[in-house]
């Protein structure tokens, strides 16, 4: 057993399997949590029927998804239509590999962890576009085009905001960034003011990336029926939906790692802290989702290009100056 684990390939495989299991389980309960939360927000109960207070609802949903008939529109591009959902989930899960869960507990400490997570989550636009285009449905196509157009808008301020911690810590490795925060300051507070603005920009753009209200423009049920997922049924739809949850969850973990100190925190063990921060940010996302309306795609692009790109560039420059002359 021990020498089996010594083999890096097998160990990677095992770690990957473990990571996927953990993430998918977390997604199941987090989706239950979101539905319960939405129920409370809207003065109703949310799921109650399956299991105690609906706790087994995600399981029932998954079973339902597996049982349902899979439909592929006859005019659809079969190859891309089939490939898009698994690819979406793969790209969403990919980011989890380098997230430091606790000190020394991460699947792989990549030298360029920040870039790696950004790359994977940035690529998520493509399976969504593939799904939209290959469905041969005009609503889906519009949704896919919105996703790609939105993608090039949010990506730049998001990457620039994520570079602020990199500039402060001088490392692209996520575990280094957390270690810095554990020994110095949390980066949301440091450099004073700038870190907070960078965090807000990053988090806002992460909402856009994860198709979350107020930026769920590609999906836009009231305009585009279900956007790129319009023609999807059964487990393929389930894969797309869970990809979004996985992405939201990983974004929350990523944001808490970059800005909120990751596993760093007093009294409680590190694992608790990263969980508390991730879930806290997820609650914030959920809260925003169930209380805000949707903006238009041109409004989002105006926000990104006119305000956030200059703002994040300025923040980055000021951070550089701060590091050079103050801290």
């Amino acid at each position, binding site marked *: 057993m021990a020498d089996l684990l010594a083999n890096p390939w097998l160990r990677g495989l095992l770690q990957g399997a473990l990571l996927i299991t953990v993430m998918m389980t977390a997604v199941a309960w987090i989706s239950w949590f979101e539905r319960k939360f939405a129920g409370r927000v809207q003065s109703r109960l949310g799921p109650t029927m399956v299991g105690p207070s609906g706790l087994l609802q995600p399981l029932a949903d998954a079973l339902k998804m597996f049982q349902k008939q899979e439909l592929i529109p006859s005019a659809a591009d079969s190859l891309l239509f089939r490939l898009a959902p698994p690819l979406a989930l793969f790209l969403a899960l990919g980011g989890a590999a380098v997230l430091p869960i606790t000190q020394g507990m991460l699947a792989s400490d990549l*030298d360029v962890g920040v870039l790696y997570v950004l790359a994977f989550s*940035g690529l998520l*636009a493509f399976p969504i576009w593939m799904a939209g285009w290959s469905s041969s449905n005009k609503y889906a196509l519009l949704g896919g085009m919105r996703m790609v157009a939105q993608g090039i808008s949010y990506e730049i301020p998001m990457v620039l905001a994520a570079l602020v911690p990199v500039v402060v810590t001088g490392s692209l490795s996520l575990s280094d960034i957390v270690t810095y925060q554990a020994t110095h300051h949390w980066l949301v507070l440091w450099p004073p003011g700038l870190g907070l603005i960078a965090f807000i920009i990053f988090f806002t753009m992460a909402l856009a990336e994860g198709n979350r209200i107020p930026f769920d423009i590609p999906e836009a049920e009231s305009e585009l029926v279900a956007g790129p997922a319009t023609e999807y049924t059964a487990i393929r739809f389930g894969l797309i939906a869970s990809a979004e949850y996985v992405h939201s969850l990983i974004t929350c973990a990523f944001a808490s790692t970059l800005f909120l100190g990751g596993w760093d925190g007093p009294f409680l063990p590190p694992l608790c802290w990263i969980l508390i921060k991730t879930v806290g940010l997820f609650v914030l996302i959920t809260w925003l989702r169930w209380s805000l309306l949707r903006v238009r795609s041109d409004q989002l692009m105006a926000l990104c290009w006119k305000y956030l790109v200059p703002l994040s560039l300025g923040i980055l420059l000021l951070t550089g100056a701060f590091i050079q002359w103050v801290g």
Partner: protein
Amino acid sequence: MLEKVSFGVVAFALLWPGFKVVTARNLVHTVFWLGLTLASTAVLFIMLQAPFLAAIQLILYTGGLLTLMLFGVMLTARDQGLLTVPNASHRRAFGGLLAVAAFAMLAMAITQTTTLPASPTAPITTQQLGALVFTEQALAFEVLAVLLLAVTLGAIVFARRGDAGSATENTANSIPARKPLPAPNAAVSQAKGA
């Protein structure tokens, strides 16, 4: 052994989509296969101990280029006919011959060169790269920045020219400007009268 197998897998994942890029009839498929090729290249970069380049490859090349290509396809291929242009069949034999000949020549050159370094050296860290960009290669970096600016401006100029042209062509049957709202009181009398 494991390394050989994994290299084989990555090489296949690189070359098979590459083959599909040049043979797929559907342009969107071409872009999709190109994306796979570029992603496999990123994996190859990781195997070459260049994780920074791999990440850049994913963000810039795969992300940026794919977006561009998709926009190119969607803006120009308005219907299925333009989306699936068959390859030029009369050039296929010629092109294939040339490609195979070129590959044979290159392969011969590669396999028969004895002075190639046999084993890898110490991996290059991202810090090294960063230091190099801003010291030794600073001029190249600046020139690249100027080039990117020029490209941005050029693309804007190219893309806008068509717009301006067609907007001024049809001024004859343009729609009359919006009339101002009547004052509320005037509207009341109008409404009551009707």
